[in-house]
């Protein structure tokens, strides 16, 4: 550091010894609070705030019973998004990675989710049900694990072959699986599944993980997100339901999802692991924000681009300080 730089630093660091003016900090704070409070009151009275009612399993099963039914079969067969997710719900996949870092896998299974029993069998078991469903449930519970898997997988494959059109599914050895899926669909239609999924037979419960995961396995939640323009690929992260501003402060986070390679799931390794890479990127950028004062180039930009001339115009004019030549 040259002497002049050191002197400049000392001057910037020392208490200001030049001209001062009166300043009432308490009054300034009070006026600011009053201003913001009044603005918030006016905006609240005029605009309200977003409050789109939550989706329900009843709404899903009533509006698109086939999709719910197929999803229930996938939960039994272990082919749904939740059943194949990996950590922290199960070990069905290794999850995402950043180069050699398999953080998702290494963090382990801390919120175990058993889609067969917790999404289908346990909720069904809480119900007073028809003889057909009760019999199917008894058959399922009495069967060996390998038999259960064979039934459910065969039915899931047959539905896939019929491209989801249930009326076109070929007859086969599906055991109690169709009856169980029908029973769960009827239960959802009646409105009993929402609470049964949450409580899992208990009383107090504040964890909605199972409900949210099951919801995401079908098309109901996804379609609602698309309709509300909330999909990540269309800046949905910073959008809000209705005509309200969303989390605009997430614009940079949202931005990466709009551009290659992040927006291409087929592009390995970054696009295929976009969630992980973007988290790392945003972590580094956040660190960069904190460290701006020591980053070469970025820290000297304010001296080169004379926006400060406008901010302190009066001071510069009063003291005859011209803009730097460099």
């Amino acid at each position, binding site marked *: 550091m040259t002497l002049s730089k050191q002197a400049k*630093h000392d001057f910037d660091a020392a208490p200001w010894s*030049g001209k001062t003016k009166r300043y009432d900090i*308490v009054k300034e704070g009070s006026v600011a609070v009053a201003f913001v409070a009044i*603005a918030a009151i006016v905006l609240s009275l005029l605009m309200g*705030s977003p409050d789109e009612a939550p989706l329900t399993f009843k709404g899903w099963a009533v509006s698109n019973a086939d999709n719910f039914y197929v999803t229930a079969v996938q939960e039994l067969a272990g082919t749904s998004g939740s059943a194949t997710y990996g*950590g922290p719900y199960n070990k069905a996949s290794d999850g995402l990675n950043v180069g050699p870092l398999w953080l998702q896998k290494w963090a382990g299974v801390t919120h175990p989710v058993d889609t067969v029993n917790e999404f289908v069998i346990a909720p069904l078991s809480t119900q007073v049900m028809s003889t057909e469903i009760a019999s199917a449930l008894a058959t399922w519970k009495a069967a060996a694990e390998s038999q259960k898997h064979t039934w459910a997988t065969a039915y899931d494959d047959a539905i896939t072959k019929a491209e989801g059109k249930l009326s076109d599914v070929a007859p086969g050895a599906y055991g109690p699986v169709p009856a169980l899926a029908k029973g769960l669909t009827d239960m959802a239609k009646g409105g009993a599944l929402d609470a049964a999924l949450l409580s899992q037979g208990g009383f107090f419960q504040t*964890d*909605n993980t199972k409900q*949210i995961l099951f919801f995401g396995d079908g098309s109901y939640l996804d379609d609602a997100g698309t309709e509300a323009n909330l999909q990540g690929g269309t800046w949905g992260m910073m959008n809000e339901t209705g005509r309200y501003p969303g989390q605009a402060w997430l614009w940079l986070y949202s931005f990466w999802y709009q551009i290659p390679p992040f927006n291409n799931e087929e592009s390995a390794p970054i696009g295929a692991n976009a969630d992980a890479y973007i988290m790392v990127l945003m972590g580094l950028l956040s660190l960069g924000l904190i460290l701006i004062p020591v980053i070469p180039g970025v820290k000297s930009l304010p001296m080169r681009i004379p926006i400060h001339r406008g901010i302190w115009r009066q*001071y510069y004019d009063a003291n005859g300080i011209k803009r730097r030549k460099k």
Partner: protein
Amino acid sequence: MSEMWTAKLRNKWQKNLPIEKLLPDDQPAYVVSWIYVFGVLTLAALAVIIFSGIILAFEGPAWYHISDSGLFVNSLHFWSVQMFFVFMVVHLWGKYWMAAWRGDRFRTWATGAIAFVASIATAFTGYLVQTNFDSQWISFEAKDGFNSMGIGAFFNVTNLGQMLLLHVAFLPLILGVLTVIHVLMVRRRGVVPPIDAIPTLSEVGR
């Protein structure tokens, strides 16, 4: 006496942040731009956020779905958050273009920047505890990012109870402490002098 921790702390506080600095009645004459207003406006918005948030906390997370007065208080919370971020971002950009970290003010900048990041985390958990469609959608979408880094193992965005507690207790505490430290640092060091300010000229004005 001077060996006492209490005495040491008091002496250090009085040396670095006497009451005249904490509650000043004058300030440098160069502080005239509108850009200076956005720091205090951010604090004011935070005050309205905390006030409306406390009322919401007393009534519970589902109150505003079924009550007009609840919806009004929720709206106060919503709009004060929107204003908070607008003011804070303008404040942040303003401080960047002023290179406000000059003169041993790096920690002032850093605490402000960390508070900005903490604010985003706090607001995010707020969106998760609205108990409406937004919460369903955001928690389902957001879980993948956190899970991909292993963070989801202990920060479960689909767990309403956990998010609610973090939103009303832990994160506001962190943000509050950062904000207090940031403001105390601003008061201690004072407002950064203009870029290219000349010591001799400033002395002339005394």
